[in-house]
Every structure is written in C-alpha cells, then in structure tokens.
C-alpha cells in the first residue's frame, strides 16, 4: 500500500502521488531520450539507409561507401558518441519508460493507444535487432573498417540464411515504423504541431516517410540476395576505376 513518500507530497495517501512540482531531473532525461531519437539516431538511420542503397550498384560501390564512411575524421569517436551511446541510452531509457506505463488497449482500443503500444514493441524489436546487428556485423567476423571491400559479402552471407533474412525484414519495417511515428511524437510533444488538423496532416507526412524508408531498406536488401551478385568474392578490390564502372550502371537493371 503506502508507497515511498516524496518529502514534498502534502499528505500521506495511498494511490498515485501528486505532482512533485519542480523537483527531480526526469524532465531532462525524458527530453534527452526524445531528442536523441531524432538527432543523432534518426539522422544516422537516414544515412544508413542511403548507404545501403549503394548496394544496388554492386559490391564495389557498396564497399566504396563503407570505405568513405570509415575515412571520416575521428570516425571511431563519432561512432561511439553519435551512434552507439545515443542508441544505447535511447533503448534502455525507452524500456524504462515502457515498464512504467500500463498499456490498456483491451478496454480503450483507440488509434492513438494502439500507436502508443506499437511504439513500445517496435522499439523493443529495434533494440534487440540492433544489438545483434552491431555485434555480428561490426565487432565479429572480418573487420569492415580495415577491409571495406569485404562489406558486401559479409552482409550477403548473413542474408543467405532465410531466418536471418526474416529477422532483417521484420526489423527494417519495425525500425522505420518506430522512426516515422517517433518524428510525429516528437513534433506533437515538443509543441510543434499543437493543432488537431496539423497533427493529422503531419501524420500522413510521417507515414509516407516511414513507408518510403521501409521500401528503400527492403529494396537494398534485394541487392544482397538477388542472383545478380551471387557468390561475390569475400573481398572485392576497391579501385577507383572499377568504382566508376559500377556507378555507371543504373540501379534498375538489377530488378
């Protein structure tokens, strides 16, 4: 019954405690969680999906993209400060938010309530997927920062397993969903779209963006499983000329 009592709470009562006016730091942590989802995590997602799209131009172009990203100044620091740590924080704090809420779609099956619940499940899928993806692709097997030419084959081997392919497809859809609704939530909760109509319109914009990103992601996956680049050598040489030739091929010839 009697829950831990905050000193500022006026009277000792069971049940939900009154607002701890102006006290504590949860505002800061919650807003940080929200902001990180857009910048840098959302921005990184866009970059990653665009980079993946290079795969449609072939193993060499894909390898060149990996080489380019790894040639950025201070890339190892960027990677930790702008990718790993924000995702870790966003994910763990997200789980913390989840366990403290109680979903009630059984009694109140309204659209917003469904999306509230979906945002939690897609987030969970995302964090589990990203955990294994980073481990297996970044920290296990052949090291891609040193051997960017091996990038295509490494992913190809992963996706050759139909179970893995299913995991990637589900995660791609879940993550794009989570990001698209996340942008909408961000705009709603930071007071950018306080109007009902504006929220509705922006909802369509976010849905379109999410759909476009998911399709883009799935199409890039096709490059790795299509017969066109079957049995790509484990490491492809990345010469500039070759890159040029590969770039010259329009993407649609694969499909």
């Amino acid at each position, binding site marked *: 019954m009697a829950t831990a009592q905050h000193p500022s709470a006026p009277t000792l009562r069971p049940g939900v405690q009154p607002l*701890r006016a102006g006290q504590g730091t949860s505002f800061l942590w919650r807003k940080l969680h929200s902001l990180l989802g857009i910048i840098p995590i959302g921005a990184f997602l866009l970059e990653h999906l665009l980079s993946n799209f290079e795969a449609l131009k072939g193993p060499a172009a894909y390898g060149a993209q990996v080489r380019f990203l790894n040639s950025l100044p201070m890339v190892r620091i960027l990677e930790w400060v702008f990718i790993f740590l924000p995702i870790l924080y966003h994910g763990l704090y997200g789980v913390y938010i989840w366990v*403290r809420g109680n979903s*009630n779609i059984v009694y109140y099956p309204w659209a917003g309530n469904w999306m509230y619940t979906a945002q939690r499940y897609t987030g969970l899928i995302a964090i589990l997927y990203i955990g294994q993806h980073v481990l297996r692709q970044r920290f296990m097997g052949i090291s891609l920062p040193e051997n960017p030419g091996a990038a295509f084959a490494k992913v190809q081997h992963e996706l050759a397993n139909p179970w893995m392919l299913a995991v990637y497809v589900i995660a791609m859809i879940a993550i794009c969903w989570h990001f698209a609704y996340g942008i909408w939530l961000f705009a709603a909760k*930071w007071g950018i779209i306080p109007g009902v109509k504006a929220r509705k319109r922006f909802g369509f914009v976010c849905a379109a963006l999410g759909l476009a990103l998911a399709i883009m992601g799935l199409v890039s996956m096709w490059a790795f499983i299509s017969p066109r680049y079957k049995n790509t050598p484990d490491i492809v040489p990345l010469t500039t000329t070759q890159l040029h030739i590969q770039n010259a091929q329009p993407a649609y010839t694969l499909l």
Partner: protein
Amino acid sequence: MASKTVQLEIKRQASPDAPAVWEKFELEWRPGMNVTSSLMEIAANPVTADGHATTPITYDSNCLEEICGSCAMRINGKARMACSALVDNLEQPIRIEPLSKFPLVRDLQVDRAVLFENLKAVKAWVPVDGTYDLGSGPRVFPQQQEVNYPLSNCISCTCCMEVCPQFNEETGFVGAATIAQVKLFNNHPTGKVFKEERLRALAGDGGIQECGFAQNCVEVCPKKLPLTNAISDVSRDVLIQKAKDFLRS
C-alpha cells in the same frame, strides 16, 4: 405480462481492504433510465437478482446532468459518467466497477483527491485575494475567450487520468486535466502572473514529460476538452521556460 428488465453486475467492496465481490441486480426497465438512476433504485430496494437482501451501493453523484464530475466509474470496462450513461445504449448485463487508479473508499466510491493536490501544485487559480479592493480585472478579448472557454469546461471527473496509460503509481504522472488547467490559467490576464511557476512545476517528477501521447484522455473526456492540444502547447512552454531558466541561471 412479462415486463422488460435490466441486468446489472456491480463490483462491491465494503472497505478499502475488504475482498471485492460481484453482485447481480435485476431492475424493471423504465424509459430513459441511466446508471445513476439504476443505483438509486437499488438503494430504494437493496435486493440482489437472486433475492438476497444487501446494502445500498455507495457511489458519488451530485448534479445528475454531467456537470459536477463526481459520478465517474467504469461501465462495461470504460471510464465514463454514470449519470449520462443511458441504460438503453449499454450492452447488458451492465458491468459497473469503481475507477481503478484511485484509492477505493467503498463500492463505487474512490478518493480522487490527487487531482485537487495536482491543481494546487500548479496554482490553478487566478490570484485576486487581498486586503483591499483590486478594482476590475483586465479585459479578456473574445478571441481569447474562444480559446479559454473549452478549457474551463473541465469537471474534474478524472476520467482522463483513469484511462491514461502513463497515470499510475510508478510514474506519479500529473494527468491531462491539470495540464489543461495550466494552459487555461496561463492564458488568463491576471492568472498569468504565476505562469513561470506553473511551467516549472510541470517540469518536476511526474510532470508533463511523462505523457506518452496515447491520446486516450482526449477520447474519453466527457466535456470534450482539447487535451492533446493543451499538452502540446504546454509542453512547448515548459521546454522554453526550462531553457530560459538554464541560460539565466
């Protein structure tokens, strides 16, 4: 002639610690009856459907026209006002339970004092008390009245808090009603003297940041308050206030 009847199932609890039991009642159908009038009829003749004598059911109600906010309860699983819940529109048997997020007093009566505490915590009033005549207040233009009036309709029923997935003992979330009142009183030409204090209060633990924007509150509100709009607007104001405080500290 077999008359039409109404079946009710009511969750009862004699005291906060007593075990909950369900009792069934059967009433003769009458035109226009609602849940509160059914509870009154049971009080007049407290006998269960299988003929056992019982006690009248404890519940809150006052205005009987959805304007006092006292009769909120869960009817067929959903939080709503009993006095405006017409029996003819409800699936039978009508299952009636107390609100689930507030300490139970007895039967359908719960203690919703937390809303009052929250309204006090954000100073949801216009400060006009004094030892001398303050004169007439500043004018509120009709355009501003249009914005404020819907927010002033809140009847403190706590339905928006009951249905909110974020309102629970873990978060101690303040709930949509209080946030809407912050917008109302911050808009008031005299009430806005406390604007900064209200916004800072809402950034405390259990404050506006806990909202997950599930939008249940705005769906359920019997007085149709624009709650999500208010949450969005006030969130921005709180954020700007915190940023200002940080830079001016």
